[in-house]
């Protein structure tokens, strides 16, 4: 809690409809955000129970500087992932961090299971358990609209909710935050579903007096000016992350058609520029972020003969264009927006959805699965079939789609095709076939995301291939991001938030930390994550990499499987030493 020497935790018991608040001084050494969430997860997780058991916790946390500085906008969620069975960690922007801050909670721990479909309301002086039976089955849009009208706090409110995918506990179901942001990865939506939890509405209407206003505002202005006046952030606002399509496609790093190709022949027609020219209608921002990177594309969709149209507004980003575009051979912005909208309404993670369908398409082509199972014929570029298949996954239409809804790794366990199930430690790959750092980075990353250690970014900046450098840089970046995510900044602004800036910001709000302490916090958090992974039975050395990564050339050329495993081994040794160093 800002200016206080404790972390204020709201515990919600959905079985008993009871709450409790604890002011935890001991959690301050984890700073906030992912640090506090990791510690709370470690305390509340049940390694012996299934990820979707009602006794498993959902943790949310905001950081030590949430909302009070520009671009410090994210909330972290932690849970046991139903997709990987191990560490679940996901981030979302929107208004959620602001509302938790101004409702007066640093972290929320949700345990138990409601007797019937429910939604929770959280405000500074109340927590409500509400009937959501009539909302069960509603799409993400519908449930948002209904709660918006029923609950107070408009403008100072965040509504997070699941769609049918979460209700039916697809392993990669997402949680939608304020229409356009998501806890996308690793299946938080399924954990909501397992608790009969359809939505949470949070109202933040407190005011917190600012101490040492002059010092604080000086630092605030410096950061604000760097964010808005310099080129450092302008790309995120201008074309946005879809700017990546063009360079990645040019240099052979754009995963295409289930990574059978590294270049998409229709890359130009789905570039950031193409979206901007044809579909972009507005940009939006998370609360407290002057950048505004959220790109909204408009799609005019004909729903009947006789010129009957509906207009839908869909958020798009690089990863979505990769997963539902190049990876599935879908070649126009309209078709991609159409697929994003279905994923959105069903409440699934767009990245996993695309990558899972990539596997299914190839498995169908290779006759590992039949049309009797898939119901519709799957083929790269067949948008009509994909739209149906996404709904079938969310509703677990038949046995096949029930398996598919558990991810590509599980599906390939059952039907074969492991060598082209494009997952890394059971999490579907991100949109970067850039080289060893991307593959190994996700395999060793604590949650197996490209955001654990930014391997794709390292591939781009590394001039000469050097094994030690890859391993050392991934390790250092993982620890650094643990610290950054304890604040919780948006990682798009990580170049603005260098160590000096972070220290100035924290010091100006009375958090007098040193550079060494920031390093120690990052290490403390990483160690806690590694302890959790171990308790959940994760073994780094048993991770198998799909052959396809080594068949299709990457941006850095053909990759050698042996070298990738060697790098994983080197990394594993490094974390073993890291953990042993603590015990000494």
């Amino acid at each position, binding site marked *: 809690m800002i200016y206080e020497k404790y972390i204020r935790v709201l515990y919600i018991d959905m079985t008993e409809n009871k709450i409790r608040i604890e002011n935890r001084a001991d959690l301050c050494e984890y700073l906030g955000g992912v640090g506090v969430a990791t510690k709370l997860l470690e305390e509340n997780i049940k390694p012996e129970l299934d990820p979707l058991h009602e006794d498993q916790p959902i943790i949310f946390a905001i950081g030590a500087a949430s*909302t009070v500085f520009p671009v410090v906008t994210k909330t972290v969620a932690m849970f046991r992932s139903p997709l990987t069975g191990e560490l679940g960690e996901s981030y979302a922007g929107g208004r959620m961090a*602001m509302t938790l*801050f101004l409702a007066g909670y640093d972290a929320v721990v949700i345990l138990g299971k409601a007797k019937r479909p429910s939604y929770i309301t959280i405000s500074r002086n109340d927590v409500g358990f509400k009937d959501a039976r009539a909302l069960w089955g509603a799409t993400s849009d519908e449930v948002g609209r209904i709660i918006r009208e029923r609950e107070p706090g408009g403008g100072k409110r965040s509504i997070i909710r699941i769609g049918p995918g979460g209700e039916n506990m697809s392993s990669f179901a997402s949680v939608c935050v304020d229409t356009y942001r998501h806890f996308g990865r690793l299946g938080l939506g399924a954990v909501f579903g397992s608790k009969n939890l359809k939505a949470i509405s949070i109202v933040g209407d407190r005011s917190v007096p600012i101490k040492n206003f002059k010092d604080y505002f000086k630092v605030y202005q410096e950061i604000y000016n760097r964010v808005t006046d310099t080129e450092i952030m302008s790309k995120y606002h201008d074309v946005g992350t879809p700017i990546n399509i063009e360079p990645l496609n040019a240099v052979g790093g754009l995963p295409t058609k289930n990574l059978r190709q590294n270049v998409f022949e229709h890359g130009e027609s789905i570039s950031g520029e193409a979206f901007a020219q044809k579909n972009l209608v507005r940009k939006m921002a998370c609360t407290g972020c*002057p950048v505004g990177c959220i790109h909204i594309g408009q799609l005019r969709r004909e729903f009947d003969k006789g010129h009957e149209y509906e207009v839908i507004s869909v958020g798009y980003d690089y990863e979505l264009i990769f997963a539902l575009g190049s990876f599935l051979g879908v070649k126009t912005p309209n078709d991609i927006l159409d697929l994003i909208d279905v994923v959105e309404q069903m409440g699934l993670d767009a990245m996993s959805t695309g990558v899972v369908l990539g596997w299914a398409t190839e498995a169908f082509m290779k006759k590992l699965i039949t049309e009797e199972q898939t119901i519709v014929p799957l083929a790269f570029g067949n948008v009509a079939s994909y739209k149906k298949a996404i709904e079938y996954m969310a509703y677990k239409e038949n046995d096949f789609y029930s398996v598919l809804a558990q991810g590509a790794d599980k599906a390939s366990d059952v039907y074969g095709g492991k060598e082209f199930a494009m997952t890394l430690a059971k999490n579907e790959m991100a949109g970067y076939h850039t080289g060893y750092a991307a593959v190994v980075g996700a395999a060793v990353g604590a949650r197996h995301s490209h955001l654990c250690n930014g391997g794709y970014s390292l591939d781009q900046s590394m001039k000469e291939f050097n094994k030690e450098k890859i391993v050392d840089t991934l390790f250092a970046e993982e620890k650094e991001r643990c610290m950054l995510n304890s604040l919780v900044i948006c990682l798009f602004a990580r170049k603005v938030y260098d160590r000096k800036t972070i220290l100035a910001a924290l010091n100006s709000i009375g958090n007098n930390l040193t550079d060494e302490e920031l390093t120690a916090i990052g290490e403390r958090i990483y160690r806690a994550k590694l302890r959790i992974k171990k308790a959940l039975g994760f073994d780094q050395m048993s991770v198998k990499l799909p052959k396809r990564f080594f068949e299709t050339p990457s941006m850095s050329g053909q990759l050698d499987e042996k070298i990738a495993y060697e790098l994983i081994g080197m990394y594993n040794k490094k974390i073993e030493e890291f953990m042993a160093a603590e015990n000494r």
Partner: protein
Amino acid sequence: MPKVLRADGMNKCIGCFTCMLACSGVNRQNYSLSKSAIRVKTSGGLQGKFISIVCLACRDERACAEACPSGALEKRPGGGVIFKAQRCIGCRKCETACIVSAVHYDEEENKPIICKHCGVCAKFCPHECLRMEEVDNDL
């Protein structure tokens, strides 16, 4: 020449709420949305437009000042009013008198939140939705 706030670029609004955080911070030394004199909200959820509710800097007779029984609102040169807190009795008549609902109310302080047309919100608007305009002194 006096200046007044014009919120006539709201179609460009990205909904970052920096204006509100800056107003509450600079004018009220609080991290808050509730203490801001400018309110940005959506009409119909995030798929709708962003709109702002802020003092329009009325000239001639100001309805809020007219309604004030204790002389706490004085005409501000160029438009709008100046709030004299020590004269305010917290009757909330100004709040209902403003037909654009731009007089917000601070429940903690039991006082209205009156826009000073200081321009802090415009300065921290990253997208040119808000601007200051020089106007004649109407007094």
